[in-house]
């Protein structure tokens, strides 16, 4: 009977085109509003590394001053000091570990026709590429020896490589960065991590891709300024080396363990490390030391702002309003069908058959509303991309959201159709048949 009722539902759309158009449009607008905001929320809160997000950990130590500290409060700083970061690198903990910070360097392209320009990049250690699954178009990450000797090597993004060298493999060629010739050792293929979870301090969480990567040690050797936030609780002396030795926090460390079960071992090591540092007169707050995996880190750093969540709730509130309107329209549509219901009941349809028929009919309205809602949602997302640069990366619909749109639309229509359908079932056939 499903196909029969579905066919009747499609036919019923033509029965009262104005009422049908109103219902479909009401539903479509509500679905489009909720789906577009939900899409953005979904992309913002997306787990960028689902295969290893429970094995990647960022440590958080509280190196803040004792003044103004309330025991139990969490540190408001999400970075760590350079000296702690260096100790993390030397710890040998986990199967991989890296320390990184945002940098910007002026680049002098080898092609004379291209003017010098500032590039945004990252200064990590070699393990970063394996830990965050960076794909390579050419070459490979720099070696551990390059890290150790602070070699002037660079991994370029595909976009920058093509811009600087054209459509050729540039591995082995040199690119002058900050006045220093760097040897290209690899080209990272187009790679977009949403959100940019490895470095949530400073810059956009969803902004542009890294344009280049140089070894942390090389960036430090060239006294490359960090390109992001830094938190200092006291004045530091002049010079780059003073910053390296200070209690200012400006770098981020990551560990990768072989299994999520190794977390306890890593936590134990971190606690021991903090105790050792306290014995050396540091970390006076005696605060708890935290380890966050990727999803916990996104939650802790509030990658998805309350504004985005509020917008989504408001959009769903709007959908609820649209559904109330749809209920009214369905009631009007179905009440005009009372005589047909009477005839069907007389010819052998039970109440449950009538219920099924009209519920499927509302499902058909939902399907059409969903299709139109999807088109409107695509339009809304395109408008968001055009009007808001930071939203460009997240205002994209994926297959999950596409499927959800139809489920939401059909589900919403069916919910809206429950009351009108129930009312349709209550039609007294005898009265309808006589009143014809």
């Amino acid at each position, binding site marked *: 009977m499903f196909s029969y009722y579905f066919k009747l539902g499609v036919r019923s759309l033509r029965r009262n085109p104005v009422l049908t158009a109103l219902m479909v449009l009401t539903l479509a607008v509500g679905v489009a509003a909720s789906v577009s905001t939900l899409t953005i929320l979904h992309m913002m809160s997306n787990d960028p590394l689902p295969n290893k997000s429970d094995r990647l950990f960022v440590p958080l130590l509280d190196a803040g001053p004792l003044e103004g500290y309330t025991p139990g409060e969490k540190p408001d700083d999400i970075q760590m000091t350079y000296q702690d970061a260096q100790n993390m690198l030397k710890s040998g903990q986990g199967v991989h570990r890296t320390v990184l910070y945002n940098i910007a360097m002026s680049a002098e392209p080898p092609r004379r026709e291209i003017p010098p320009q500032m590039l945004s990049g990252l200064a990590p250690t070699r393990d970063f590429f394996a830990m965050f699954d960076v794909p390579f178009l050419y070459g490979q990450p720099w070696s551990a020896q390059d890290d150790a000797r602070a070699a002037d090597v660079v991994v370029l993004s595909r976009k920058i490589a093509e811009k600087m060298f054209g459509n050729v493999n540039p591995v082995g060629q040199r690119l002058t960065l900050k006045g220093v010739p760097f040897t290209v050792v690899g080209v990272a293929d187009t790679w977009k991590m949403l959100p940019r979870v490895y470095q949530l301090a400073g810059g956009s969480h969803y902004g542009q891709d890294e344009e280049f990567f140089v070894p942390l040690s090389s960036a430090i050797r060239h006294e490359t300024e960090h390109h992001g936030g830094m938190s200092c609780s006291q004045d530091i002396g002049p010079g780059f080396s003073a910053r390296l030795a200070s209690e200012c926090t400006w770098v981020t460390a990551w560990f990768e363990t072989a299994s999520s079960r190794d977390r306890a071992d890593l936590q134990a090591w971190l606690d021991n490390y903090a105790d050792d540092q306290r014995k050396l007169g540091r970390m006076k707050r005696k605060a708890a030391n935290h380890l966050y995996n990727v999803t916990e880190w996104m939650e802790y750093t509030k990658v998805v702002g309350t504004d985005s969540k509020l917008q989504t709730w408001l959009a769903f509130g709007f959908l609820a309003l649209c559904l109330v309107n749809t209920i009214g329209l369905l009631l009007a549509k179905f009440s005009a069908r009372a005589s047909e219901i009477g*005839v069907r009941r*007389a010819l052998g349809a039970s109440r449950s058959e009538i219920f099924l028929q009209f519920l499927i009919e509302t499902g058909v309205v939902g399907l059409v509303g969903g299709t139109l809602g999807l088109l409107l949602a695509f339009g809304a997302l395109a408008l968001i991309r055009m009007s808001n640069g930071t939203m460009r990366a997240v205002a994209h619909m994926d297959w999950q959201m596409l499927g959800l749109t139809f489920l939401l639309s059909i589900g919403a229509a069916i919910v809206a159709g429950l009351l009108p359908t129930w009312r349709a079932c209550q039609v007294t056939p005898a009265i309808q048949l006589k009143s014809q």
Partner: protein
Amino acid sequence: MLRMTNLSKVYRTHMIETHALRGFEIDVRQGEFVTVTGPSGSGKTSFLNIAGLLEEFSAGEYVLDGVNVKGLDDNARSKLRNEKLGFIFQGFNLIPDLNLFDNVDVPLRYRGFNAAERKKRIEDALAKVGLASRMKHYPAELSGGQQQRVAIARALAGSPKLLLADEPTGNLDSQMARGVMELLEEINAAGTTILMVTHDPELAVRTSRNVHIVDGQVSDLVRRGATLVDTSATA
């Protein structure tokens, strides 16, 4: 085929209680063609609705083709209605946006016949009422008499044991009414029991038996030659 014993139907509002049928007794045998007459408000429609399982009765007993319908749930009543009864209404009650084929198809869908069986039954039923060539037409494209023929085809397609007709010629001119009546007589001659409500005394005398209802009670008349004889006093 249909037996009602001491049946009553009371309509209640918070203020008023109306007895539509009281102590209602009737026994319709297989193959009979019974007309039901009576003044307006006498209870004819209530009787037909109860006979057609479209309304519940308040008290008494109703046995339809050996099935005591008292206490049956909606699903069982709907199934019984679909399998044993056919309906013909004064207003035809065709579904306007379905063509003739699909209109006749409606009760067969609820019966669960497969597509081939349904097609055969629809074509046979429409052929029987002389509308086989118009099965793709819509009701609005037909005359009143033709629409009533489609309604008869729809009622017949499921091979019902009892045909319930509520003033089937009420909306037709005399020529069309005659045609419909002749068709019903043919159907009855082929073995289908018919119970027909009518206001037309001419139609009433054409059938073997006339049940006259007054104030919710039955006065049974049987044709004896050219006249109708009241048998209820001796029953």
